[in-house]
């Protein structure tokens, strides 16, 4: 009877594992998010960057090793390249002089990023229309005032036109992110000026990088121009010689002494208790020997 009850309990204790499995979610197809960005850096290097991710528990999870096709043109699309996403779900393609791009009447390029999907992931695509902008930045000293001048022109119908009314950000890269210095709106001639602060720390020699950038611009994408010069304050980042403090590698002496005294006191008493145990054992053995002799 007892054995039967024990077996029954054993079976019951295993049951939760099976019941938990039955609550497993049904397999459904993943709906991916495809994004496409146009990046043009300071050296006029143009890159198409596409990402493939999906959302799970409100977290963005990358899809790695997926092939994405990049196209140019609207009605008649032409393949530019096939790229594969990395572990962050990102794939990049550099547009070179050899890349054949189809532009519309206004001179804009239409780029499409397309993922065809598979058994577990749905298909998805993203499209952007970009006009090639030429961004220039000059850094000059006007009456000892550090002045930044930016100018942007865009090719439309074969003619160079000022990019009037667009916003250019002036940034300085810092340790964690870019520090915004100024947000400039370009005038009718496509240019704008700003004063650069004189109290910004640079490196040991006072060098810092100034960045002019069209950021997430719906017409131009991400276009930037940068220059490094001695416009910052010289700073000394050498680590001072370590001393005893709560925030350095070596603890203050009073802390070490306090902890040592406390621990010695406590473990000393433990030692006393252990010695007592040994004494009990020795006493017992002695008594046994005496009884044996008798």
């Amino acid at each position, binding site marked *: 009877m007892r054995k039967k009850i024990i077996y029954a309990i054993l079976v019951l204790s295993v*049951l939760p594992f099976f019941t938990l499995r039955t609550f497993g979610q049904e397999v459904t197809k993943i709906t991916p998010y495809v994004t496409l960005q146009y990046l043009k850096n300071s050296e006029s290097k143009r890159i198409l960057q596409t990402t493939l991710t999906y959302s799970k528990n409100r977290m963005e999870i990358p899809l790695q090793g997926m092939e994405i096709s990049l196209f140019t043109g609207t009605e008649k699309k032409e393949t530019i390249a096939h790229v594969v996403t990395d572990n962050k779900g990102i794939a990049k393609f550099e547009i070179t002089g050899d890349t054949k791009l189809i532009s519309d009447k206004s001179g804009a390029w239409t780029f499409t990023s397309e993922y065809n999907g598979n058994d577990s992931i749905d298909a998805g695509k993203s499209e952007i229309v970009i006009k090639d902008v030429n961004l220039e930045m000059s850094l000059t000293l006007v009456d000892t005032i550090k002045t930044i001048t930016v100018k942007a022109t865009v090719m439309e119908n074969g003619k160079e036109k000022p990019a009037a009314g667009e916003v250019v950000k002036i940034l300085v890269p810092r340790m964690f992110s870019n520090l915004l210095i100024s947000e400039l709106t370009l005038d009718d001639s496509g240019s704008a000026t700003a004063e650069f602060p004189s109290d910004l720390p640079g490196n040991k020699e006072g060098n810092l990088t100034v960045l002019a950038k069209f950021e997430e611009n719906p017409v131009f994408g991400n276009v930037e121009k940068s220059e490094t010069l001695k416009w910052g304050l010289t700073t000394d980042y050498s680590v001072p010689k370590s001393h005893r403090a709560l925030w350095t590698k070596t603890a203050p002496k009073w802390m070490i002494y306090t902890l040592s005294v406390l621990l010695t006191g406590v473990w000393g008493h433990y030692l006393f208790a252990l010695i007592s145990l040994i004494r*009990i054992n020795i006493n017992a053995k002695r008594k046994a020997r005496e009884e044996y002799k008798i």
Partner: protein
Amino acid sequence: MEADRKLITDLTPEIEKTSIKWYITFFIFLAFFAVGIYGLYQQIDKGHIVTGMRDNVVWGFYIVNFIFFMGLSYSGALISGVLHLFHTGWRKPIIRMAELITIISLIIGPFFIFFCIGRLDRLHFLFLYPRIQSPITWDVIAIITDLVGCFLYLYLSFIEDFAILRDYPDLKVAPWKKKLYKTLSLGFTGTEQQHKILSNARMVMAAMVIAIAIIVYSVLAWIFGVTLQPGWHSTIFGPYFVIAAVFSGTGLLIILMWIFRKIYHLEEYITQRHFVNVGVLLTVIAAFYGYFTFSDYLTKWYGSIKMDSILIDKLFTDYYSLFIFANYIGILLPCIIIAFPKFRTIPNITIAAIIAVTALLVNRYIIVIPTLETPFLPIQDTRPDWITYSPTWVEWSLTLAGVSVFAMLFMLVSKIAPIISISEMQEKDKNEIMK
């Protein structure tokens, strides 16, 4: 070492034979434990995403459980140490339970830290590159020191009982158990000198476990107190944690007294007097605990520091029912039940203890979670599920697994050792104890 048969039969009910009830209860707890293991497997396999912890609330139910179990442990040490040191006559039937609460909680508590740590593979760095300035390092040292000390203290209290069980001729146990009793009793035969050595060692260790319990739980409180987080940065946190721990431990002691009395029919040994005495102790501690709680929140409220005000608003809105239960009902109701003599029945005192222990667990929750849900800096693109916390089934399963292990270890101890000290009960003043 001699003892009468009745004492051995009454106080070691599971040593000679195991009842079906024991097996059923044990396997029920084992089933809960198995579900917890499955939850842990899910967490190891998929990462901490299966828990409710996110960017802000990085300490969830696991840390709540850790503080709760460590509190039970330290309170067990404090209660047993104080009762032993002051030779309280009525302590003898209950002191063993307090000692077992200490050790078992101390074994379970740190496991919740392991569940909480994201990079368990770096755990050994704590020992390889410790910074003495860090309260985390203090806590690691303190827990190890406390564990060793409590084991020693418990072992000292077991030696005489092991000697009694070793020498009792009619004890029907497996040969390995006999061998175990022989080894663990260290040849104790009850000579005057051995008694003196053992008594001295127990007195020293009783004093030590009291001191260690206070220091160690204060260290745990300082992990919170030394940070600048709203609600935690308080000079009162050390003593507040200690008194809260004793409050929960006393409550648990009453619950265990009721369970063991009921299951093993120990009415002769654990009387109403024990319940009333421990109940009165619970009331006194509840008063102190209530005073500390009031003092802590009142100071913060009047201080009007922006983040403290936001936190207190949150406690009285989002956490209103939990706050009221933990800090009003959980303190006042046990006091009312025990303060009036006509309510002082064993079931009533046990209900008061259950309310006290549950309220203390909730109190731990509202100390840890709302503070972490009140970040100093505004967060860009914030989403409610990044800020707010609710435990998932994985955290619940591991919590239940912890409680199950607590019960199972108690049951396993009852299989090899007396749940009430035989040696203390057979002393000459037994009649005095029973008064």
